[in-house]
C-alpha cells in the first residue's frame, strides 16, 4: 500500500502525457488533482496504520519493499519505502499542499491550450511522484532517484514556457547547478558505502551509533566528516544555500504555482529532510554540523538583504525562501533536528500561501509582476489581500501564527547551544524578514495604483465566493475592465493555506508556554538509530531565559513591521532618498552582490573556452578523429602495397602453391 502513494501521481503523469494529452482541460486537470488527492487519502490511511502500530524499541514504522533493484556481490539495494514519523510529516506536506496547488493551477493555467495544460499537469504529477519517492525511500539510492527526478521536473517546469529564452536559460541553470550538488551527493553515497558496506538508512544509523564522534576540527577529519560534507554539498544545491543558491531566483521564470510547490514547499526542502533522515550520521560529525549552521545563517542574512531592494514580487519571495531555508539549516546545524523540520512544515504553509497569493495578484493584473506598478489592490482583491496578510504575519513571526513558534524555537535552540554569533545573525535576519515582507505587502496592496492600468472600478468580491465548479471560465484578457479576485479553485486553496498558516504552529507550542511540544516528541524517534540512546540535543531547560528571548524576538519582528510601515505605508519617498544616499550599497544589493557575474567570470567562461579550444579542437577533432581516420589511411596504404600480388600470371600462383607444399613437406621432414 505504501508504494501506492508515489504510484498514484505517477499514473497521473502517464495518463496526462499520453492518453489524455489532447483531452479537454477539465479532464486533464481533474486527473492530476484527483491523483494528488487520492495520494493524500492513502497517505492518511497509512499514517493511521503506522500510529496504531506497537512500537519496536520506541520506533513505529511501516516498511514496504517493492522489488530488489540491484543485487551484486556486496551491494544489495532493494526498492524499499519506509514510513516513519519524519517521512509522515513530509508526505502530508507534499500531498496536502500539493493537492491544493493542483487545484489552484486548474484556474491559474486556464489560458493555456489543451495540450499545454495537460503537459503542465503531467509534469506536476511527475514531480510529486518523485518527491514522494525521495521522502519515502528507505535507502540512499532510492532517495537519489527521487532527488534526481525532482531536479528533472524542476527543469521541465521552470522552462515550461520554453519559447521564452529567459525561461529556457533559467531551467538549464537550475539543472546544471543542481548537478554540481548531486555530484557531491553521489560521492557522499560512495563514501558511506565504502565505510559501512550498506546504503540502508537504518543500517547505517545503527552502525554509526556504535562509533565515537569525529573530533570537531578538520584536522582529525574522518570518513564521516567527509561523507557528510559531501552530502551537504548536495543539499546546498538542491536547497539553494551558499554557494549553489543562484538558480532559485532565476527559477521564478516558471509559472507561479510551480514556484509555490517546488521552490517553496517541497523540492527545496529535500536537503533539510536529507539531513534529518541522517541525523545520527550528522551528529557524529560535529565539524559538518558547524559548517551547516554557519552556511545556513549566512545564507539567511545575505538573502534577506537582497530581498529588501528587489522590485519583482516573485523575486522577493524567492529570496525570502532562500533565507528561510537558511533558518532550517541553522536549526539542523545546532542539532535541533525536530525544530528544523517543524520550521520546514510551517514554512511550507505560509510560503505556498504567499506565492499563490502573488499568483492571484499577477493573474488579476494579467501578468504584471513589478511591484512599482502595483498598489491599492486591497479594495479590489479582498480575499487575496486577507489571505496574503495572514501569510505575511506568519512569516514575520508574530504569535499566534505558525511562523512564530517555529522560528522562535530555532532562535532559542541556537542561543541555548552556545552559538551566540549565529543567534545574532538570525535575529538581524528576522528583523529584515519582517521589514521586507511588509514592504511587499504595502507596495502591492496599499496606497494608490501606480500606473495607468485597467481602472479598478469594479472592486467585486462576488466571483470569489459561491462558485462550486472546478475550472470556471475566467474572462479572457480582452475582458479588459475590472480586476477580479481569485476564481474559486484559487480562492479555496488560498483560504485553506491561510488556515494552515494560522494553525500549524499549534503542534509545536513549547513547554515554556505550557504547551506539549507535540511535534518534537513525535519526531524524536526518527532521529535516532534503533536500539541506540537518544540523540542528545544540546538543550538547556531555562524557562526564564527562553521566555525572555521569546519576547525579544516578538519585539524585533514588531520593530521590523514598524520600520516598514514608516517607510512604505506612510512616506515612500524615504526609501528613494535612502537609495540615492547609499547608492553603492543599493547597487550592490540590487545586483545580488554580483554573485552570478562572479561565477560567470571565474567558472563559466573559462570552462567554455577550455571546451571549445582544447577539448573540442584538440582532443576530439585532432586526436580521436585523427586516430579513426588514421586507421583508415593505414589500411588504404597497405592495400595499395598488397594488391601488387595479383599479377594475373597463373604460373606465379601455381608457384606459390607449390612453395607451400614444399615448405610443409620440409617441415615434417625436419621433425
Amino acid at each position, binding site marked *: 500500500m505504501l508504494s501506492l502513494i508515489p504510484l498514484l501521481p505517477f499514473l497521473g503523469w502517464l495518463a496526462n502525457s499520453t492518453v489524455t494529452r489532447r483531452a479537454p482541460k477539465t479532464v486533464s486537470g481533474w486527473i492530476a488533482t484527483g491523483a494528488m488527492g487520492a495520494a493524500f487519502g492513502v497517505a492518511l490511511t497509512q499514517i493511521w496504520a503506522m500510529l496504531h502500530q506497537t512500537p519496536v524499541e520506541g520506533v513505529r514504522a511501516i516498511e514496504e519493499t517493492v522489488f530488489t533493484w540491484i543485487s551484486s556481490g556486496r551491494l544489495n539495494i532493494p526498492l524499499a519505502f519506509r514510513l516513519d514519523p519524519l517521512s509522515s510529516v513530509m508526505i502530508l506536506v507534499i500531498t496536502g499542499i500539493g493537492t491544493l496547488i493542483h487545484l489552484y493551477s486548474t484556474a491559474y493555467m486556464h489560458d493555456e491550450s489543451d495540450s499545454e495544460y495537460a503537459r503542465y499537469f503531467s509534469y506536476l504529477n511527475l514531480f510529486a511522484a518523485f518527491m514522494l519517492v525521495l521522502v519515502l525511500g528507505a535507502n540512499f539510492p532510492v532517495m537519489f532517484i527521487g532527488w534526481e527526478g525532482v531536479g528533472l521536473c524542476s527543469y521541465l517546469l521552470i522552462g515550461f514556457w520554453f519559447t521564452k529564452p529567459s525561461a529556457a536559460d533559467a531551467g538549464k541553470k537550475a539543472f546544471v547547478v543542481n548537478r554540481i550538488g548531486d555530484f557531491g551527493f553521489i560521492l557522499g553515497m560512495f563514501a558511506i558505502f565504502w565505510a559501512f558496506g550498506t546504503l540502508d538508512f537504518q543500517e547505517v544509523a545503527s552502525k554509526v551509533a556504535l562509533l565515537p564522534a569525529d573530533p570537531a576540527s578538520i584536522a582529525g577529519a574522518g570518513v564521516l566528516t567527509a561523507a557528510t560534507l559531501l552530502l551537504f554539498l548536495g543539499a546546498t544545491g538542491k536547497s539553494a544555500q551558499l554557494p549553489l543558491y543562484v538558480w532559485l531566483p532565476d527559477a521564478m521564470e516558471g509559472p507561479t504555482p510551480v514556484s509555490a510547490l517546488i521552490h517553496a514547499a517541497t523540492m527545496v526542502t529535500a536537503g533539510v529532510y536529507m539531513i534529518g533522515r541522517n541525523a545520527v550520521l550528522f551528529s557524529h560529525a560535529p565539524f559538518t554540523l558547524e559548517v551547516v549552521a554557519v552556511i545556513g545563517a549566512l545564507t539567511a542574512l545575505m538573502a534577506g538583504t537582497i530581498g529588501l531592494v528587489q522590485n519583482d514580487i516573485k523575486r522577493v519571495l524567492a529570496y525570502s525562501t532562500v533565507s528561510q531555508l537558511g533558518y532550517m539549516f541553522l536549526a539542523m546545524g545546532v542539532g535541533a533536528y525536530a525544530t528544523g523540520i517543524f520550521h520546514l512544515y510551517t514554512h511550507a504553509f505560509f510560503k505556498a500561501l504567499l506565492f499563490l497569493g502573488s499568483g492571484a495578484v499577477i493573474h488579476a493584473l494579467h501578468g504584471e509582476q513589478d511591484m512599482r506598478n502595483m498598489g491599492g489592490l486591497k479594495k479590489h482583491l479582498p480575499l487575496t489581500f486577507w489571505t496574503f496578510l495572514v501569510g505575511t504575519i506568519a512569516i514575520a513571526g508574530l504569535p499566534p501564527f505558525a511562523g512564530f513558534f517555529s522560528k522562535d524555537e530555532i532562535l532559542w535552540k541556537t542561543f541555548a547551544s552556545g552559538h551566540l554569533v549565529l543567534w545574532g545573525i538570525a535575529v538581524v535576519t528576522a528583523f529584515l524578514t519582517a521589514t521586507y515582507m511588509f514592504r511587499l505587502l504595502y507596495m502591492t496592496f496599499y496606497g494608490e495604483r501606480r500606473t495607468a492600468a485597467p481602472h479598478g472600478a469594479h472592486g467585486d468580491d462576488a466571483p470569489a465566493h459561491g462558485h462550486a465548479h472546478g475550472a470556471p471560465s475566467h474572462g479572457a484578457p480582452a475582458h479588459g475592465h475590472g480586476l477580479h479576485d481569485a476564481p474559486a479553485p484559487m480562492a479555496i486553496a488560498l483560504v485553506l493555506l491561510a488556515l494552515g498558516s494560522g494553525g500549524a504552529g499549534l503542534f509545536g507550542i513549547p513547554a515554556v508556554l505550557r504547551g506539549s511540544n507535540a511535534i518534537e516528541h513525535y519526531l524524536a524517534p526518527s532521529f535516532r538509530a534503533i536500539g541506540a540512546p537518544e540523540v542528545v540535543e544540546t538543550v538547556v531547560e531555562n524557562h526564564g531565559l527562553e521566555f525572555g528571548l521569546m519576547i525579544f524576538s516578538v519585539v524585533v519582528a514588531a520593530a521590523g513591521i514598524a520600520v516598514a510601515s514608516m517607510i512604505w505605508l506612510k512616506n515612500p519617498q524615504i526609501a528613494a532618498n535612502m537609495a540615492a544616499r547609499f547608492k553603492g550599497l543599493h547597487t550592490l544589493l540590487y545586483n545580488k552582490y554580483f554573485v552570478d557575474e562572479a561565477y560567470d567570470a571565474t567558472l563559466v567562461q573559462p570552462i567554455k573556452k577550455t571546451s571549445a579550444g582544447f577539448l573540442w579542437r584538440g582532443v576530439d577533432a585532432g586526436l580521436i578523429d585523427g586516430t579513426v581516420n588514421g586507421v583508415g589511411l593505414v589500411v588504404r596504404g597497405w592495400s595499395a602495397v598488397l594488391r601488387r600480388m595479383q*599479377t594475373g*600470371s597463373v*604460373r*606465379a600462383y*601455381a*608457384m606459390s602453391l*607449390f*612453395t607451400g*607444399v*614444399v615448405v610443409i*613437406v*620440409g617441415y615434417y*621432414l625436419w621433425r
Partner: protein
Amino acid sequence: MDAIFFWLLAAGTVLASVGVIFQRNPMHSVVLLIASFCALSGLYVLLGAPFVAAIQIIIYAGAIMVLFLFVVMLLNVPTEDPVHGYHARLLGGAGPRRFGAVLSLLFAVQLFLVLRTLQMTPLPTDAQQPPSTVYDIGLRLFRDYAFAFEATSVLILVAMVGAIVLARREPR
C-alpha cells in the same frame, strides 16, 4: 631378371619424361610422352598388374594422347619462341619459372630423404603373390566401389558436355 627389366624401363620412363619437358616442338613432346607411357605399362606388368598395364596403353596412350595429338595438329601450334620483353624480366615471367624449377628439384630431394628413412622392403615374388586378375579387379570394382563407378560415369558425361560447350564456336 626382373631387376634388369626394371632398370631399363625406369630409365626409359625418366628419359622420356625429361624429353617431354625439354622439347621445343609440342608434337615431339606428345610422342615422347607416349613412349613414356609404354615404359610405364611395362613397369606395371613387372608389378603384377596386367589389367592396369593394359588399360594404361588403351586409355592413356591410345585415347588421351591421341586427343592431344589431334588438338596439337588442329591448332597448328607453333614452336615456342624465346622470351623477350616483360616475360624475360624476373618478376614477370622468368622469375616464377626459374624459381619453380628450383622448387621441383628441392621437392625431389625432400622425397628422396623421406624414402631413405623407410626400410628397404623387398617386394613379394610371383610365387608369394600371383598377379591380380581381371576377375579380382572386377569383383572389387562392381561390388565394393560400385557407387564410385557410377559417379565416375556421370563425371564423364559432364566432362563431355563441358568440352562440347567450351569448344564450339559462338553462334552468330
